[in-house]
């Protein structure tokens, strides 16, 4: 096993160079990328689904459960991505992130608040100088159907608004029709747009929108393509398409980041998003992270949940452990 190296944000200009070195070619083309991506081993669909079903039967109790609940809370990207979002709603979400459970100050805080780009500055102001990150979706989320200059302007706008993390969507149309180089170039360009004037850079999460990719093989290819282009995180879904995050899809992505670190030494994070609503769901994901990718990924730095309702259920379970009585939705804030 290779030693753990924190992902060093590569200078964007070198993403293509790194990719050429890795693929052993002098010039990246659709044909080169296609040959490489389609050379990846296929996913055993039945095997993957059986594996997650098996892992889902693990029973997590008592102190392990308490640890898992707190870990899961600290991994949440508390999300509101509605057309009806207002600054007031974002501020109340931030207040919830700062004090998830007023009845228990020991409750950990979520990792980030995830909003649309135009509300990033509102979120940043509401969170003050707390360590909670602001994540903003960009690049014509959720469809990704906009011209490149618009996507880059969208990204820069969110970064200027104070976003610490950018959640971009890939162009699924281009990916599915085999224009891999276009997807690659877009990710590289957005990554460079994440750079701030002081030389630092916002973390880039690349949303594959697995619900539109149809097969696990395509999910594996999209994961590798995103990692090759310099993604810091790969994220399953926008949450706007059903199915959103599923366990088998996340398993394929966890295998991809594990193998990527073996291959390049660079660790990439994973974020399932959408459809994760209960503590039991979250536990299944944590078990899978530990078993597939390994314990190195069991921190908010490398694994996140994109969710809004999940926090409420985790808090209810936390209260149940603390008081010994079943709690109810009256005892957590509504979103």
């Amino acid at each position: 096993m290779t030693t753990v190296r924190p992902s060093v944000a590569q200078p964007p200009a070198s993403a293509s160079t790194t990719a050429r070195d890795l693929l052993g070619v002098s010039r990246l083309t659709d044909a080169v990328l296609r040959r490489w991506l389609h050379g990846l081993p296929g996913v055993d669909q039945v095997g993957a689904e059986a594996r997650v079903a098996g892992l889902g039967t693990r029973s997590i109790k008592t102190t392990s459960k308490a640890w898992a609940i707190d870990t899961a809370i600290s991994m949440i990207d508390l999300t509101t991505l509605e057309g009806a979002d207002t600054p007031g709603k974002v501020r109340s979400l931030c207040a919830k992130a700062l004090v998830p459970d007023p009845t228990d100050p020991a409750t950990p805080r979520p990792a980030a608040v995830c909003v649309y780009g135009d509300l990033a500055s509102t979120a940043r102001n509401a969170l003050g100088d707390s360590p909670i990150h602001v994540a903003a979706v960009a690049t014509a989320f959720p469809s990704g159907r906009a011209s490149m200059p618009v996507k880059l302007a969208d990204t820069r706008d969110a970064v200027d608004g104070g976003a610490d993390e950018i959640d971009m969507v890939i162009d699924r149309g281009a990916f599915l029709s085999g224009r891999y180089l276009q997807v690659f170039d877009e990710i590289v360009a957005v990554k460079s747009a994440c750079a701030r004037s002081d030389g630092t850079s916002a973390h880039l999460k690349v949303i594959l929108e697995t619900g539109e990719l149809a097969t696990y093989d395509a999910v594996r290819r999209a994961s590798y393509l995103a990692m090759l282009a310099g993604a810091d995180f790969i994220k399953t879904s926008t949450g706007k398409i059903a199915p959103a995050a599923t366990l088998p899809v996340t398993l394929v992505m966890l295998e991809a980041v594990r193998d990527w670190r073996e291959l390049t030494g660079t660790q990439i994070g994973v974020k399932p998003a959408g459809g994760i609503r209960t503590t039991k769901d979250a536990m299944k994901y944590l078990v899978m992270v530990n078993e597939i990718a390994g314990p190195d990924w069991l921190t908010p730095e490398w694994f996140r949940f994109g969710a809004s309702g999940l926090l409420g259920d985790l808090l209810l379970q936390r209260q149940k452990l603390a008081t010994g009585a079943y709690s109810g939705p009256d005892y957590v804030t509504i979103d």
Partner: protein
Amino acid sequence: MSPTTATPAADPRLEVRKTYKLYVNGAFPRSESGRVYAVHAASRGRGAAAGAGSRTGALLGNVAQGSRKDARDAVVAARAVVAGWAGATAYNRGQVLYRVAEVMQGRAAQLAAEVADAEGLTAARAAATVAAAIDRWVWYAGWSDKLAQVVGNLNPVAGPYFNISAPSPTGVVAILAPQRSSLLGLTSVIAPVIVSGNACVVIASQDRPIPAVTLAEILATSDVPGGVVNLITGHTAEIAPWLASHRDVNAIDLTGAADATGVDWGTLEAAAADNLKRVLRPEGVGSQAQEPDWSATPDLHRMTAFLETKTVWHPKGR
């Protein structure tokens, strides 16, 4: 064995035995714990006076032994449906309750046999008990659109306002069903709770659960929305404390705590105080608590115990 029912030895029919399951969210799951417990018939002829502990009769079946997690799931189901059920018109709820009586009538023979086995009654007395239970549904069904007139009020106030108090359901109610009266008593605790728009989680009589399971099947086929009544069979002493302390349960009916093995209703009431649940105590004092006489015509107290009062002020025009 009469000659007409004798089957040739060459063609024996396999007995089709019934799996007695829980009733949660309109479905019939087994207990998540996978457990069952044996239920025996009461010895015949001793009547309803035969208490717990005298279960020496034939094995009636293995009944699902519900756990705290089954109760937890039932509360979630009840909470999800209570807004819709409370929002239904009183007229509609009355029709649904009457429908329960209609469907029960069609299965009266089965119920009578089960009640006779469970309570050790003669066939005639069991049939009379079932008839009384059916009539109890009709009695409560009639109250659905009359309750507001009787317990609501137009209050005189010192100002140009109408001031109207109207009853509204309290929400999710946990019910400890009577231990002895397995059908009439059960009906008499469920009907008054749901007629006003509450949803309920019922722990059936521990030693006499089979009529309750059949009632659940009747409820499932008589327009009662899934989740309005959830029925858990099992050990009352095991499940009741979890419902008493459950923060998302708004009220608890402790009627069945009288005579339940290992249940101290005072402890349950203390646990219920944690989130200010409404509590309906069993009749009698302390350990002298006992089941009421279910054959008597009920009064309103089982309905009013699970109501909140909503008062609105409305400007009075000319």
